[in-house]
Structure formats: C-alpha cells, structure tokens
C-alpha cells in the first residue's frame, strides 16, 4: 500500500564552496579531521566507523590577516588534534569544546606540513625557510625539542619513516632524508626538471623498506631507494601536479591524485618491490587536495568540496556534499516561518501561504562577525534567539504590511532581568524554544541547563537557576544532537541518548537513558503527542523508544542498496504523529505507524503492549540533490534543498582534458 505525502521544496540555503585542503584519520577512534577553506574556514570531525557522519565543527582557528589558515592537520597521542598554517604556529585544538588549547611557535615563518612519529611522542613541522622543527608531545602542551639543519627552500611535505628514525621531506627540485638523531640530511635526491621548469615535490611517503615515494608538479610519481639515494623508477601517472599520496592500510597500494583529478591506484606486485599503475577512479571534478585510507575505504577531498568515500572491490563511490554542519534550521509551523542559521548570520524566511511568495524577511549578522553557535525560533514566530561565545541575544520580531503589500519586519532586542554565568568552558550554549515564551539554554558540554522565561508585558527575559543534568559528566565531544518538546528534552552525548523531562517548576529530571547502540545516532526526534523518541543511526538502524519506561517499541534496519552509504540526516514527525519523514542527503523515507499508539496509563495493564505498535518504512523512488532539512508545515512537510550547481558555479576552472570533439 502506498502513501502520498505533500512536500514543499524550498531552495533557501546559500552554500558557499569550501574546498577540503587537508585531512587526517585517527586510526584508533576512527575520527577523520579535515580542514575546509573558503570564506569561513573550519576543521570538521567526522566519525567513519560506519557511514561517515559529521560530528563536530571547530571554528576557533589561528588566523593570518584575519583569515584562518590550516595547511596540515594531524592526530597524536590518542585523540589530540594539531594543526599548522601560514601563521607559523603549531596549534592544538580541544575537540570537545572547539577551543584553541595552545599554540607553539615554529622557527622561521609559515609551517607547511606536520608529521607525528610512530610512537606518537614527537611532532615534526616543516617551515617556509627550510627548517624542520621537532616538538615533544607533553601531556598538556608541546615543548620545543630542536631543529634539524636548515635546507634551501621551503619544506612542503614530510613523513616519518616507520622505524621513527628518519624523516623524508619534499621541497623544490629535491627530496631529502633526514636522520633525526644526528640532525643532518643523510640523502639528498634531485628530482630533475622538465623544460628547465622547477619541480615541486608536493607529496611524500616513506615505506617500510626505506623506499621513498614522491609525487611532484610534473605529474610523476617517483620511487627512490632511501638507503643508497638513487631513483629506482618513476612513472608518469597524471597530466598535472600530483598533490597527494596515500598508502593503503594493507600497504599494498598507493593512491595518487592532484590537479588532474583522477585518483590512481599504484599497486605493489606481490613478492617484488615493483609498483605498477593500476585502476584509476574518477571521483572528483576538480583538483584533489588530500587523501586518507581506512581499511578498504579511500577518503578524498579537494576543490570541488565533496568528501568522497570510495572502495574497490566492490566498486562504490559515495559523495558527502558540503552542507555545513553549522547551518541550523528552526521552523515556526504556526507562523510559516523558517530560520536558517549560518556561521556568522541568520536569515528568516516567510514560507508561502496561499498566493504569497517565498520571501526572505530578515537577515541578522552577529556583532563583530562572531561565530553564531546556535539559534532558535519560537513556534508562534514572535521570538528568535541566537548564541555566540559567552552571550545570548533574544529578539522579538513583528511584521507590518507597507503600502506596497510588502512585509516589513521590526525587531526589538529583549533586555535581561538577571544574568547567568556558565563556566569558561561552557561559553557556548544550545538554544531551543520549548514554549512560545520559554527558552532553554543548554551548555555545549551538556552538563548545565537553564530555562529563560520571556515576559511579554515588559519585553524582558528572566533566567532561571542553572541546573546540572544527571549522567552528563564523561563525554568526549559534548552534546551532539538536541531535541525538545514542551515537556521533554532529549540529547546525545557521544553514543548515549538521554531523555529528561521539564517539571512544572522548571526543574529538570531524568526520564531514562536509551539503550546504547554500536553505531552513532544521526538524528533524534521526539513524538509530538506520545512519549516516543525516534532515533536514526549511521548503520541505517531506526529505533522508536518509549522514554517513560525506556523500552524499545520497535527497531528495524532499513534495507538500502549496497552503494547507498548516505547516513540518515534527520527526521520529522507529522502533525498527527502517525507518520514520520526520515531523510538523507539524496532521498526521503516514510515511517508509518500501523498499530495503535498506546497511552502510558493503559500500558501498565498490558503485558506485551509494544507488539500493538508496528511500523513500516517506505521509500520514495525520487532522488534529490541535496536535502538539508525536513520540517513540518501544517499537515505537509517543508524540505530545504541545496542546488549543487550553486556550489559548482563558484569553483575555479578544472584541469582540462583533451578529448575527442571538444
């Protein structure tokens, strides 16, 4: 039996292209850190245990001339994240709070590359002036160890040898192998030139047998013998610069890519030290800047902004489009309004009702271009609020029609009757309107919460006491997802899901913790009428749980095609609570409840009442590019869609290929 549901698609999200310039995988926790450039640079943390899921975005980066600069990121010493850039510092980031922990200045100029030794105790940084700086990784900071001999020209890439004694570096026209203990270069390998044009070594690998593999600006991948310092062989793999090389997890393949966006697999002949060109992968349309491998999976990113995951065999290519995590949506169902929060501003859209048009009624920028952490709009559309570091702003919005029948918004900033103070590490707060005049503020760590009441007569905000939530102490990343209704709050802390209830006196008590699942939750949604929470996980599981008793009502793994590795992005219940729409980047699913939803009071009388509730997941054959949000809109749904062409048209020209007839 089929269901027909009405959807309104709105192309209201402006996505700016943010190219991926570097990435690093933590092989222990399976967290992939990548830096996206563009107007708003940020480091993204992805969980790649199952289907890749964007977990956290770090905005607080070291800047140069007011612009964030990250040339390389590395993980070290169990979940510590370091980055470097043109500002000349090696910076450690707090993954949990997104704060910049500390920075260590490198000798002389910009830092182009970083490398961590195999024992995770020393970090090496290559600089503009040809120095390789070594830092000891201490418990809470980096301490300067020494510099190796200075070389001519910048150090563009480096990698430690598996034994931890040598460092291979690449620069203009030469490759060097350094003895870390002696501090001298033990080998200097000249790359040679083509048409007297200097050769830039962009990428380097040092293999177990001291074979040094380099990729350079001629499109050549060279294999050098690091022991005796000679070129073993080289192969023309690309028609333009090879920007990145990556060794597969089983060390049998090397992936190479660059300005020529073909990702080429260079395979090792078993039983020999010979490497040969193997199958290419056409994944990206523009320069590939960085590669990372995990088991059979290859992650790639570049100018075209897509994070791609590919594998062979079986041949699977999945692209995760650049729909920024910092974009938040807050729909006002009653007033037909949609709030979209970007990194530094928010927009409010009036959705069409009857003959009216879709209009952007308001755009608010944060003061001093501060990063907005969270934003929310009340259900009646009268109030909206946003939070920046250490501050919350609440506004009343009203509309009047001018002579031309155009909506004119008027804003009034609400005053605070009292002030609240979170600790320094909880400067950022999640905001949610739980009622039209009641705002919830939840600290980013998830430990502290307060309820603010809006006094509509005096147009002021009164904060309640700061309360500490139960069971929120030990969390690695802090609060991930937040869902609220008028009476309940549901949050995720790492892979735990906890439901709280708001009492009459605005105290908060814990309802239950949902059973933990091996995969991370990708969305949580509270039922509008019943004590049910709908959770989707990155392994395609869908779970509905009764949070009054903590029992799982139903659980199912959605069957998808083998190559459909997009995680569920979110869900939305219909107004009658009989159906929910679950969406991922490119498709929509409908979850339909076929049995009775049992009232909590009746439930106690039933022995196995959960069997009365059945649900069925239905699929829609239509494919979309790309879906960013689904929300309720009366009895229908509103979908925010991103046009991929709006991203592509801003990209620089790609490497041209000669082809027949063009």
């Amino acid at each position: 039996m089929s269901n027909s549901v009405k959807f309104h698609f709105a192309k209201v999200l402006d996505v700016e292209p943010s190219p991926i310039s570097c990435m690093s995988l933590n092989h222990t926790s399976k967290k992939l850190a990548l830096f996206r450039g563009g107007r708003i640079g940020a480091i993204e943390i992805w969980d790649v245990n199952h289907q890749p899921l964007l977990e956290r975005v770090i905005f607080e980066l070291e800047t140069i001339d007011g612009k964030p600069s990250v040339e390389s990121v590395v993980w070290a010493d169990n979940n510590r994240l370091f980055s470097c850039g043109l500002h000349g510092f090696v910076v450690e980031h707090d993954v949990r709070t997104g704060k910049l922990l500390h920075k260590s200045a490198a000798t002389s100029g910009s830092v182009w590359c970083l490398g961590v030794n195999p024992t995770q105790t020393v970090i090496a940084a290559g600089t503009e002036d040809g120095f390789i700086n070594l830092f000891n990784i201490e418990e809470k900071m980096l301490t300067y160890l020494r510099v190796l001999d200075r070389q001519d020209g910048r150090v563009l890439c480096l990698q430690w040898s598996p034994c931890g004694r040598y460092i291979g570096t690449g620069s203009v026209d030469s490759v060097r192998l350094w003895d870390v203990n002696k501090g001298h270069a033990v080998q200097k390998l000249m790359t040679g030139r083509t048409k007297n044009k200097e050769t830039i070594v962009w990428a380097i690998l040092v293999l177990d047998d001291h074979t040094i593999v380099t990729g350079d600006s001629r499109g050549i991948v060279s294999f050098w013998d690091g022991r005796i310092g000679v070129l073993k062989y080289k192969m023309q793999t690309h028609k333009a610069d090879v920007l990145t090389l990556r060794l597969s997890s089983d060390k049998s393949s090397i992936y190479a890519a660059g300005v020529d966006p073909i990702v080429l697999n260079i395979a090792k002949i078993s039983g020999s030290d010979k490497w040969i060109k193997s199958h290419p992968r056409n994944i990206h349309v523009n320069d590939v800047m960085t590669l990372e491998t995990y088991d059979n999976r290859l992650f790639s990113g570049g100018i075209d902004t897509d994070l791609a995951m590919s594998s062979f065999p079986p041949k699977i290519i999945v692209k995760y489009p650049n729909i920024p995590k910092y974009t938040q949506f807050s729909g006002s169902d009653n007033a037909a309004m949609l709030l979209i929060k970007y990194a530094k501003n928010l927009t409010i859209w009036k959705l069409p009702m009857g003959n009216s048009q879709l209009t952007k009624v308001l755009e608010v920028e944060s003061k001093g271009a501060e990063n907005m952490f969270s934003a929310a709009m009340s259900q009646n559309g009268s109030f909206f609020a946003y939070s920046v570091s250490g501050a919350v702003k609440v506004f009343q919005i009203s509309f009047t029609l001018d002579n031309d029948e155009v909506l004119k918004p008027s804003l009034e900033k609400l005053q605070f009757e009292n002030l609240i103070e979170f600790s320094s590490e909880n400067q950022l707060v999640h905001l949610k309107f739980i009622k039209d005049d009641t705002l919830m503020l939840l600290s980013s760590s998830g430990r502290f919460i307060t309820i603010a009441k809006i006094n509509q007569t005096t147009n002021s905000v009164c904060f309640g006491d700061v309360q500490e939530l139960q069971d929120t102490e030990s969390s690695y990343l802090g609060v991930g997802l937040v869902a609220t209704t008028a009476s309940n709050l549901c949050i995720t802390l790492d892979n735990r899901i906890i439901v709280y209830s708001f009492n009459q006196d605005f105290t908060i008590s814990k309802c239950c913790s949902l059973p933990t699942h091996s995969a991370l939750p990708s969305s949580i949604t509270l039922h509008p009428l019943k004590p049910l929470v709908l959770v989707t996980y990155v392994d395609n599981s869908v779970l509905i749980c009764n949070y009054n008793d903590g029992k799982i009502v139903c659980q199912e793994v959605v069957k998808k095609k083998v190559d459909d590795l997009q995680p569920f992005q979110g869900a939305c219940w219909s107004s009658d609570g009989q159906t929910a729409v679950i969406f991922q980047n490119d498709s929509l699913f409908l979850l339909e409840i076929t049995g009775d939803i049992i009232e909590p009071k009746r439930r106690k009388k039933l022995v196995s009442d959960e069997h009365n509730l059945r649900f069925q997941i239905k699929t829609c054959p239509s494919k979309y590019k790309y879906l960013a949000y689904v929300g309720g809109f009366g009895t229908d749904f509103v979908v925010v869609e991103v046009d991929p062409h709006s991203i592509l048209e801003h990209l620089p020209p790609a490497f041209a290929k000669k082809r027949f007839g063009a």
Partner: protein
Amino acid sequence: MGGLGAPFILCPLSERRDFLGISGADGSIVLTTGKNMAIRYHVLEQKQETSWTSSRHWFTSRVVKCADIGKYGAILDNNTVAVWNEDDTAMGDVTKMKFSDPIWELNPSSSLTEDGALVIFENGFTTPLAPLLTSDQKKKLRKAIATGKGFVDTECDTIIDAAQCHPEKVVIISAPKKAGRAIVTRDVMKVTLLHKNQIVTQIEVKSEFVGHCILPGDDGPSILYLGRDGRLWQQFLTTPLPAPSLVGSLAKVISPLTPVVLHPAPPSSKDGDWSKVVIYGSDPSEEGALIALYDLKYDIVVAKQSLKMYANPPIMDVLGGNVLIPVGLHVLVIALYSSKSRLSGVVGKHGIRSGEEVFEQRSPFVLDPVTSVGWTVDVEQPHGHHNKQAAAAKKLLRSASSNAEVNAIKKSFPEFWEVVQQYKILEREGQPQSLICTQILPLALTKGDAALDWMLQNFTDIPESHLIIILAKLLDNMTDSITASHSLLDLILSRSVDPAQLVGALTSLDFILSRRLALYLKFKMESALTMGSESGDDTMTSSVLWLTSLLDAHYTHFVLGDELSLVEELLSVVAKGAAWLEAIAELEPYLILTQQKIDFQPRPNPHSKWRTEILTFT
C-alpha cells in the same frame, strides 16, 4: 552561411587568472599570458614564433602590434606606455612614457582609422600613440593631463570595453563605479563615442545585460548586448539616437544566467558585412560551455559547439578568422569558415526543430514481391477516385497472366493501359521498381495526369530525379498565382525522399519552376497554418524539407538574384510553422494522456525557489 571548425589546442596557459588578453599580429596572435610574459604564436602551424619578457616591469594590458609604427606596445605597471621592436625579446631597449594617470589599455591600430594605435586612459582620455613618440607632443600631453584640459570625459566610469570603428571613431563602454564593491556591476553601461577626442554621442543603457560587443558596420557602430532574459538587443550609435532594436532571443541557445562573451565575426567575402557574432557562454541545457555563431540578419544560430568546461568569467577573442578561448590550462582555437550551404542554414534550423529526420530506407537492389509493391499503408490512404483505381489495379495485377487479363487492364485503364502493360512485362522480367520507373516514365508523361497519378500511387520507389521530372511537368502547367491545392503535387510532396538526393535532383529544375514550387510550398504551409487539418503537421514537415532542399539547390539564384524578399517571406512562414510544430510537440504528451483518460499533474519547475510535489512512498 558559415561554421565552426574542429577545435585544437594552440598552447598551454599557466595561470588563467593572470591572463591579460590576446591580440592579432601579422597572421599570428600574441598571448599576454602572465604578468611579465607575452608570446607570439602562429595559429595554423601551432608553434611559438617569439616571446617578450619584461624583467623589471609588469604588463598590465595585453601586448599589441602597432601597425602604424611597426612596433609592439603594451602598458607597463598601469601607467607607462612601452613600445619596442619585435626582435627585442628581453625588452632591453624599450621606449617608455610614464604618466601620472592610470592607463586602461593600448588599443591596436586599425586600418579604418587614420590615427593608428590609441592610448586609452582609465578616465576616458584617448590619444593616438604615434604623436606621443615625439617629445613635443609628449610634453603637450603631460601638460594637458596636468591641467585637466583636453580630457573628453574626466568623470568616466570604469571602462569595460573599447574599440575603434568606422568612420574614425572610438567607442568606449564603461560601467558606473559603485563605492565599496570590487566587482563592477554590468547592470548599466555608458557608451561614449569619440571622434578626434570629442564626444560625439554618449548614452546610458539602463537594462541588465550579461554580455556585449561593439559591432562595426557601414551604418555606423552599434552595441550588441544580451539581456538577462536572453534577448539580444542592438543599439545603433547614430544621431539622433534610435531606440534599441530586438535582434532575437537566445535564451534557448545560451544561458543568460552566467556571463557571456560576444564578439563580431569578421565579414567573409561572401557576406561582406558584419552580420554574424560569435557567442561564448554556458550551455543552458547541460553542464559545460557553448560557442555559437549567430547570424543577426536571419536570427539563427548558424553553428555551435559544446565544450566540457565553462570558466567564469568567460574569455574569448576572435582574431583572423579564429576563435580563441582560454580553457583550463590551454588556449583553444576554433576556426571560423564560410560554408556553401548558406540557405540551408536559414531554413535548415527549422527543419531540425521539426523533429523529424527522413532516412533513406529503400534499397534499389532489393525487389519487393509484386503483390506487395505499391500497396503499402500510405498508398491505401483515401485519395478519392484514384484510390479505387489503385485497388482495381492491385486486384488485376495479382492475377494478370494472359491476354484476357491484358484486355481487362485495357478496359480498366483505357487512358494509359500501355503503361500498365509495360510495367507488367518489366516486372515479370525481375527488374526493380526504380528501373521500371525509368523506362515507363517517358510514356506515362505523354499519357496525362491519370497515368502519373497511377504511378505515384503504385510505385514506392521512384528515384528523386524522376519525381522532379514529374514535378516539372506539373509546375509547367501552373501559374505563379496559386490559389488551390494540386492533388498530384501534394502526392509528390508527401512522399518520403532522401534529402541529399533531392537537393541534387532539384538543381536540374528550372529556376522559374523552382520559384513556382517555392510559392506553392509557401501556399501549402500558410493554408496548413490558417486552415488546420488532420495532416497539417505532416504537410508542414514535408514542406519544410522540400523548401530546405529547394533553397539549397538554388541558393545562388535566390540570394544573388532578386529573390531575397521571397526568401524572407518563406523564412517568416517557416518560423511560424516551426513554432506551430514545436507547440504540438510540447502538447503531445498531454494530448496522449488526455486521450488515454489519465489525469496528469504539470511538472514543477525544479529551478524555482519554491515548489510543491506530492510524493508517493511504497
């Protein structure tokens, strides 16, 4: 009309962002590729001829050949005019003139102007280069600049284009400055027409546009600009200033959402006038770029080519009959050429739009069984009494094997029984229809319309040359004033023919008869448009095909003769017909759904910001 050749890569381009432009020089082109490098290439030989590098200064405009002084010149560091000899590759012996005011570009000399190369300052001041080389003039000019005297437009906005046009005029297009905005908006352009440093005309075009070019012409220069709605406008710069005229709509050809480059195509010896422009922009239907050669006179796209990539902002130049486009890391060359099929281009585009391709499916070497020859479905369509005759003939031929049957044929076809009898004999000998037709046609022509009608109805394979012979005989009996349809002519025109062979065969048709045929086709199309009929679209399709072939076969007569007005009339009828066919094609799926009594929802536009869809989940 003209066409675009196969593209080839001329040379690599290191940095497209630093690319300053292309100029022509003695059959070669000069690419100012980077900030301090200019290279001259021979286009056809695809090789580098020479290069110049300024080690201490940066080029800020393209390097041009100043034909009047026989030297190369460019602007260095924004405010210095530099001139040097061709063999001075290291640019060691450069004549430099530094000014305090920024210079926009050095405009190369044109044979149309007396003054040769021009120096155009960013404030709009324009002066010939050659007199500057004498010290007296330089001093005078500096004095003039210092005092502000002599400046033609000291409040000139940001210049976006300039060209020298006949007669001895310089056109400067500028866009208004907007404070605080790095990108110059192209919403409004200001056009200044200079003559001997005096402003002749100055206009403001206040409509949004995505591309423009300056078009020289015998009637004075004009500005072509493409609006954001895809419509191409032409603004003549004559006094008094006329209103801009609409040239045509290019929305379906090129995407007006992204910037477009327009460039006039050099006039060929056949055209002799500036009637075509080369357009480079993004493809509206798919990803990538599109280059089109557009004829302004006939409002058609003569030729087009797709490229895989479209780069924003687009750069294109047309030099010496070659289109040059920097794409990715290369410079692409596409040759422009004049082709013989001028008028097929005029009418052919509508032929293509009609959506029907007629392919030759017959084989003269395969003889169909006698019983099936000539009585296929199309022959059995109702055609009045001729159809009854055909049915009778079919019946007779099936069983005709004796004298008695021959007598029966004679009785049934008293007027042309000999023709039928001869056909019967030849068919029994095993000859194919095309050969039989050759042998019995002369006899049939003497027997009148009935015999010809019988042939047309019963023969599926009549060579095109024979059809033209029949056509000539029928047209000969008609006059130029056509008021009614001719059933036999309609029979001929509705046959499926091979277009290539038809063009060849139509060349043998006398021009007077060809003109009459064209008039008849025009009449048929007009009546199909006004009256409407069940077979209206078939009539329209076949008429367009015949007209295309006819004009191709006699293009010299139609164009070089005095028949341009007729061609224009035909073009308007064909355009109307094509629009009609297009409308039917668009409606077809809905008509089919209506016929099948299936409810249909109009598909929402996927490009609109808000759309509603009802999705079915299964």
